[in-house]
């Protein structure tokens, strides 16, 4: 019951937040001197009538506040509007969301299932050669800029011919059998996943190692050891549960990044995800599309934090009691 009220309270808090976010974004986009019709204006074969029609269609002849009101009204009704080319924003987003989710979910799954155990191991074998080698490797992983790494891998793909140069599916994808399709997508995913995995693995491993080391140094762990518990029980029953809290907060942020975290890598690998769509929309000042993606990002971030907070309440009795007091 307590938790339910807490969730409701949090959801109500998000409403003013979303309004502020949308207001700021809308005004920044509209006040920037990007004219969505500039390209058309300088085209000798475009007539005055066409320009006039386009201006009216995009609502550019109205004051900004009216434009915002129109947008907000339809947004509340669940209508995301149309892009500057007249396509439904919702269908455009729907085309891309599965692709981005595929990439980010694979990366998060891989990096958590590898990063957390590696962090634990490194903490247990603290200051052994194993730990030192991992430290060097993760430092390299964290130091490589993802953009640069992606470009390097792309050149690697061109020179060796072992991997496709970007994209998600081959051009004869339609004629493949199911298992061939699966292999084809996997083949295309290897490079982008490698880039994102390297980056997030390194961070996660360091975080886990640091947390566990802190906890292992605490009094209750010393006490548990003194009591004569087995090392396995000490670490997995007592230490790990306490070390995992910061990671849960991190998981909330990972959730927020599900739809927006990979834009740069997506762009380099020509991955047909949301990042590329939104970058192109921003460059063209395609307001409905940009607003939809910004709002989506804001909602995902709020949701991610909410989920993390709830998980913390479940895992950590201290927080549970704190919220009751």
């Amino acid at each position, binding site marked *: 019951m307590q938790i339910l009220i807490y969730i409701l309270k949090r959801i109500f808090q998000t409403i003013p937040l979303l309004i502020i976010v949308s207001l700021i974004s809308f005004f920044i986009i509209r006040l920037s001197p990007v*004219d969505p019709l500039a390209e058309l*204006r300088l085209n*000798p074969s475009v*007539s005055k009538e066409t320009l006039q029609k386009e201006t009216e269609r995009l609502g550019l002849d109205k004051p900004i506040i009216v434009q915002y009101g129109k947008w907000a009204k339809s947004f509340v009704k669940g209508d995301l509007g149309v892009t500057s080319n007249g*396509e439904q924003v919702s269908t455009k987003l729907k085309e891309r969301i599965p692709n981005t989710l595929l990439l980010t979910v694979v990366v998060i799954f891989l990096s958590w299932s590898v990063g957390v155990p590696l962090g634990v191991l490194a903490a247990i074998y603290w200051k052994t050669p194993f730990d030192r080698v991992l430290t060097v490797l993760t430092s390299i992983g964290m130091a490589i800029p993802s953009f640069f790494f992606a470009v390097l891998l792309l050149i690697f793909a*061109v020179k060796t011919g072992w991997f*496709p*140069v970007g994209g998600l599916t081959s*051009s004869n*994808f339609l004629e493949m059998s199911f298992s061939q399709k699966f292999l084809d997508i996997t083949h295309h995913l290897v490079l982008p996943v490698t880039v994102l995995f390297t980056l997030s693995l390194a961070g996660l491993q360091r975080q886990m190692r640091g947390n566990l080391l802190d906890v292992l140094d605490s009094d209750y762990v010393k006490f548990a050891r003194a009591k004569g518990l087995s090392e396995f029980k000490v670490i997995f029953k007592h230490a790990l549960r306490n070390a995992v809290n910061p990671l849960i907060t991190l998981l909330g942020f990972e959730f927020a990044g599900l739809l927006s975290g990979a834009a740069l890598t997506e762009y380099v690998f020509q991955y047909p995800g949301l990042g590329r769509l939104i970058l192109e929309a921003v460059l063209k000042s395609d307001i409905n599309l940009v607003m939809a993606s910004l709002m989506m990002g804001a909602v995902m971030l709020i949701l991610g934090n909410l989920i993390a907070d709830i998980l913390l309440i479940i895992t950590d009795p201290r927080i549970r009691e704190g919220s009751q007091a």
Partner: protein
Amino acid sequence: MKRVIYVILVLLIILGLGKACIRADVDETQKPVLRPKSEIQEENYPLEKNVTINGIDYLQSQAPVGKFGGTFVSSTIGEGPKTFNPFNSKDNISSQMSEIMYDGLVTTDPVTGDTIPKLAKSFTVNGKEYIVKLRHGIKWSDGRPITADDVVFTWQNIILDGFGNTSIRDSIVIDGKLPTVEKIDNYTVKFVTPEPFAPFLRMLSSPIAPKHVFEPAVKKGKAYFEGFLSTNTPPKDFVISGAFKLKEYVPAQRVVFERNPNYYVINKDDKKLPYLDKIVYLIVGDINNQVLKFEGGELDEISLQGANVARFKEMEKHGDFTVYNIGPDTGTMYIAMNMNNRKNEKGKYYVDPKKQVWFQDKNFRQAVDYAIDRKNMVFNIANGLAEPLFTSETLNSIFLNENLKGYDRDIEKSKKLLKKSGFRWDKAGHLIDKFGNHVEFDLYTNAGNTEREAIGVMVKQDLEDLGMKINFKPIEFNSLVNKLMATLDWDMVIMGFTGSPLEPNGGKNVWLSDGTLHIFNQRLEKDLNSPRYDFEKRLDYLYTQGALATKFEDRKKYYDEYQKIVYDEKPLIYIYSPIRIVALRNKFQNIYPTSLGGVTHNIEEIYIK
């Protein structure tokens, strides 16, 4: 001691990086050796001919007979098509994609630029009357016959009634009147324009729509039509007349077309073309990725620019592709001076009156023209991949006035011209006009366009040799458009247009004195009746007459004179036209590159050996 070693190491790395940069620079400055354009055009393209077999009027390819099968992979940069409805397309990629699927009544001879029949069997022009004969027995991709009803429906109910993109309709309104279209019999259609209007013939290349598919959509109104045959339409719903039909569209990845088994072009063995099974257009985000994809073997064709040309020329020697020089592009780069002599609403001059004296002086404009070193710009900015340009029609235009010769930079001639208008130089070499004002003005271009920025720097240097003081200001594209189109408070600008090699009337928005892009003397709504310069009046006359005349020879006379006027008066000073370079895999046969049609104008005849 340790610290010293680290410092040396870091220095070595920096030196190494520096060295890498130097080597790259040397490679890029080597100018590629290209096949001259003339060599390409010797390989004469055999035009397709009409033949009638069993009562069916086919178009027969005269190129060597090839093998069936295979895929051709090309690419487009950007977001991909926005619609597959040929009447709704507003951007190049959408039009390109729909033109693959829908043929027009006529097309352009890829070698001479003449208008030749395509979906039509023949046509005759008689003043205002255009009679078009259709082919007997040819079919849409769903097996229904293509008849006069389809043509009349397309023109009357879609184009003339203003459905979709109305740019064709807007351009054929003459004195507020539209052409009429009428069915004579099942295979004959008559068009009548209100006045003789030469550009109309090329408008007949607009796609023809299948009536049985488009009619229900048209009946539902214009709003519905906007979304008809969009990118979300299932490919099987398309009924087409062109060589290839949509098979698959994957957003942000590719568009796949498959051959149309009912296409009306046959080869010399009377087998139905096209040879290729599929055409694939990969949708790539930028040029770099496109180049990587070509090098990785994923693309069969690519347009090249700048430094890549030299690199590809080098790779060509042991690669499986050929680099073609297609000749000058339709793009132009020019300098314009603001010749506006009017006041804005607040009673202030758009252009400072002392500057007006310079820009409205023909001698001054010519002096600027002679001071500009086009050859240097072609060599240093366009990597040698451009042709100096002196005329307002592009170099591949069939209306190009070839009597207008190019010339080299001549700074002495510039000085003589300036002296004639009373300009002089002070002791420090600064240019002073006859009223004693120092010649100093702003030069704009859009920031971010590295090519135009580089031209700006060179123009500034060239003009400073004449003692002018130039403040070069690259500004953001939208702000620049606002200056050029609305506030009109600019002095000199470097911009570019894309012309049409076939129809000068496409430039009427630039050259008519009340045009929407009459950039050197833009008239806003309130100024439309302001006095014209003499040469503007003459251009108005020539442009109107050029469109009304119907014979090529008569039109050529008008357009020759218009080019001569622009050449003499220099309202726009043209700099250069880029050359198009295309790389194509050697496995493709029946390749006849032409400057008007590019490499794949005869896509149905191309086969893989």
